[in-house]
């Protein structure tokens, strides 16, 4: 084995071209450190992206990389995975790239459960094209294309993934180094397609849009870090907990100390719970972070190879195949 690589070994010589203070820097840093921590084999690791600020990510990671076209990264990655299932493939996409132009491919990659680790950098804006509202922008978002405020209802990335049939859904905040590293590690370990939404601050066009839960002073009160098998508690002293209200069929916040036995325990295999958790929005409710949903299932590439039992190895010849029909000889 070669010597232990450091984060620097996973960093290219390319000058990084994000705006100073952009959340993408923090994600890049956590990623390179994570790759070094797990000793990722650089030649077997690939970053594939679409188009957007976020999609410049592959240029900065010293692995293989492919900066493709707007929205199509999951499709390119699918072909690569089929050609070489041994590769660790990360897809980097944005809220526009993955949920407007490329939403179709995202849906199909997720429903197939092909082992791509899809990171959606959600900044609720089209950064690269200078700040138009995106499909995750909240109603009323003022932008160059919506000077009076946007009026289309946003999509929730997590719920979209769940509805698409994703088997693994996790969430993290760009600057939360531990939370993000934990989620990356879980996605990396998971055998199958993983969907990770990263709340990413676009300091230029949508500054502090996640402030209500990501901001330092709100983090404790408005974030619930979910862990499989542990109670869904948050706030100082874990004083608050989530309870399922059977009357309203919804989650509610209760005093976790006084009503401890009513607090839900996180079950990451429960899709209904996942839906309720993913739907929570600040400030009314805490925002769920960590691995919200994870179930085991057959991967697409494994099914693909079951249907291509030779695994691309030629076990027959074209010369024989040419004759695999009625033939006749002229003398």
């Amino acid at each position: 084995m070669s010597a232990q690589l450091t984060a620097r070994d996973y960093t290219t010589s390319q000058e990084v071209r994000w705006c100073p203070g952009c959340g993408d820097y923090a994600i890049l840093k956590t990623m390179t450190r994570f790759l070094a921590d797990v000793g990722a084999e650089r030649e077997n690791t690939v970053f594939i992206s679409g188009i957007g600020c976020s999609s410049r990510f592959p240029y900065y990671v010293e692995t293989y990389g492919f900066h493709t076209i707007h929205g199509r990264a999951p499709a390119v990655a699918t072909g690569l995975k089929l050609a070489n299932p041994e590769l660790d493939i990360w897809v980097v996409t944005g809220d526009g790239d993955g949920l407007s132009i490329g939403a179709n491919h995202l849906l199909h990659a997720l429903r197939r459960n092909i082992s791509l680790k899809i990171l959606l950098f959600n900044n609720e804006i089209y950064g690269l094209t200078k700040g138009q509202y995106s499909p995750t922008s909240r109603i009323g978002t003022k932008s160059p294309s919506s000077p009076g405020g946007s009026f289309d209802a946003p999509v929730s990335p997590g719920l979209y993934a769940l509805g698409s049939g994703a088997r693994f859904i996790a969430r993290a905040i760009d600057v939360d180094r531990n939370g993000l590293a934990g989620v990356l590690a879980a996605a990396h370990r998971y055998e199958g397609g993983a969907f990770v939404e990263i709340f990413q601050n676009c300091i230029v066009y949508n500054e502090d849009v996640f402030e209500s839960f990501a901001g330092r002073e709100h983090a404790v009160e408005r974030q619930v870090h979910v862990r499989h098998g542990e109670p869904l508690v948050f706030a100082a002293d874990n004083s608050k907990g989530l309870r399922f209200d059977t009357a309203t069929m919804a989650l509610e916040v209760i005093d976790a100390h006084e009503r401890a036995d009513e607090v839900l325990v996180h079950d990451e295999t429960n899709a209904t719970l996942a839906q309720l958790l993913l739907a929570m929005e600040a400030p009314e409710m805490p925002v769920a972070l960590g691995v919200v949903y994870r179930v085991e299932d057959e991967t697409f590439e494994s099914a693909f190879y079951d249907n291509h039992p030779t695994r691309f190895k030629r076990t027959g010849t074209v010369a024989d195949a040419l004759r695999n029909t009625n033939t006749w000889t002229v003398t």
Partner: protein
Amino acid sequence: MSAQHQELHESSVVVRFAGDSGDGVQLMGTQFVSATALAGSDFATFPDYPAEIRAPAGTTFGVSAYQINLGAGPITTAGDAPQMLVAFNPAALKVSLPLIADGAAIIVNTTSFTKRGLSKAGYDEDPRSDGSLDGYQLIEVDVTRLTLETVKPFGLSKSDAGRCKNFWALGLVQWMFGLSLEAIEHWINTKFARKESVREANLAALRAGNAYGETAALAAAVPQLDVRKARFEPGEYRGVRGGEALALGLAASGELADRPIVFCSYPITPASPLLHQLARLGKLGVGVFQAEDEIAAVCAAIGASFGGAIGVTSSSGPGIALKTEAIGLAINAELPLLVIDSQRGGPSTGLPTKTEQSDLYQAVYGRNADAPLPVVAARSPSDCFDVAIEAARIALRHMTPVFVLTDGYLANAAEPWLIPDMNVYEPIEVNKLASKPAKDVQTAVFERDPKTFGRPWVSPGMPGLMHRIGGLEKDIQTGHISYEAENHQAMSQLRADKVRSVAQFIPDQDVAVGPAQGAVAVVGWGSTYGALYQAVRRIARLNDCVSHIHIRHINPFPRNLGDLLGRFERIVVPEMNMGQLSTLLRDKLGVQVVPFNKVTGQPFLIQEVVDFVLDQLADVTGEESRPRIVSGEPQ
């Protein structure tokens, strides 16, 4: 064959089977073809499907037909006017009548000539009694009733029993041509190996139809046709459809390059047969991925190519349009990719089941920015095999996407094929990079061969060669992103030079028929080959100053094409579009051409090409009248 039978000695006979979609006409056609092939005839076929999958029974728009031209050959088209028609219902008769030759033999299934059947076909009067069939040789046979009687002992349901009528009719046709039932019996035995009653019923129907012909009472009425054997080169033959040949050619490319083929597609008429064929070729190292749409399909193929497999995507015009942006990505990333376009009538959804050659502009010019790529076109079903290999060779040598143009006619048409000897094909070389380049990897990965402009094919998984590719412009030297003005100019030039360099590696343009200079050159591309070839041969019997030139390499053109065309006084360009090759010839070679355009959804008839060319010839030579040449003359 008994002497009392009329014997028609024709060099070739054109037969058309027509019926409802559910009548099994296509199966009947393919089975008839395998029998004629075994008997040593040359042949060409043309299946003509309805656009609707389950059009209402008995209607004219639900008619499915299969046309076969068989005989001594060389046969290169499915023939102009059928001399024999088998019509399973009034609608099939109505649709086919305008197409068939005067005096043709028409076998009609009288069972379906009921009042209701006639009115569904839009006949007010029964055409058998109103004189509209005068001048044809009408043979009335109660096919459905006779079939039902024959298969009664096997206890099939009424609809299953009725379905045996195609084999009953085929039995009769086999008798008319003096062809053995053996190959068809063998097929039925294999196909229905596990369905005894269906198997036995179909065998019985086939033999009963055959015996019906033998019956003395009918022998006089039914013509017997003795088709002469073709003079084939010695060797081992098979029948092949364009879709099959293309699939096998792709598999052969993988074998020759020793790389997997990853075929990514989204279903569309008439490209789907290729998807279906390749799905069965796993043993040859072919993987098939049915994507969610055409964009995903081309992108997955590009991803596979990045991964070191030969990525192939396929569609017809509308789907190719969707792939456009991604094809530009493959050009920019300098990755190999095969884009197969089975053309159909357009624009938009157009005529999905009808053939056309109207995507030439799309292939050559149809992308944003200056995005040139090589384009090759197949001219016959068996030619699809070689074209696929040729395209893959170009793609890997020059590291570029390559367009392969075929069409609905080629995909489904069949012909006999001298099975190629795989040993005569050169292996396809892959551009390699030593695992430890001295310089920056990003730079080494984009270091191009000075003759081909092809870069090394480096894929994830190769140690020490990590690099990044993408759609952004890159520095011509270093391979890193570059927005420099001068560099973009240089890279645009490089992409153009790359495609131009392909011409150094392809054969000179040959002349298919006729001398290399003269009065008129008939210049074509793609599936019109057969019709143009026959037309020029017919003319050549009387006049030796007309030639046929058929272009496989559409972009770039062969180096000598300009010179060659310059040696003719007039260039006639028949195409199944509104003049796309004509534009290209004017654009690239600066020659003046006379377009001859047909966009009816049907292939060219030999005779219409003959007529057009003769008019042009008369114009060039200044002769008033032109010699009369009609079809059907011995060739």
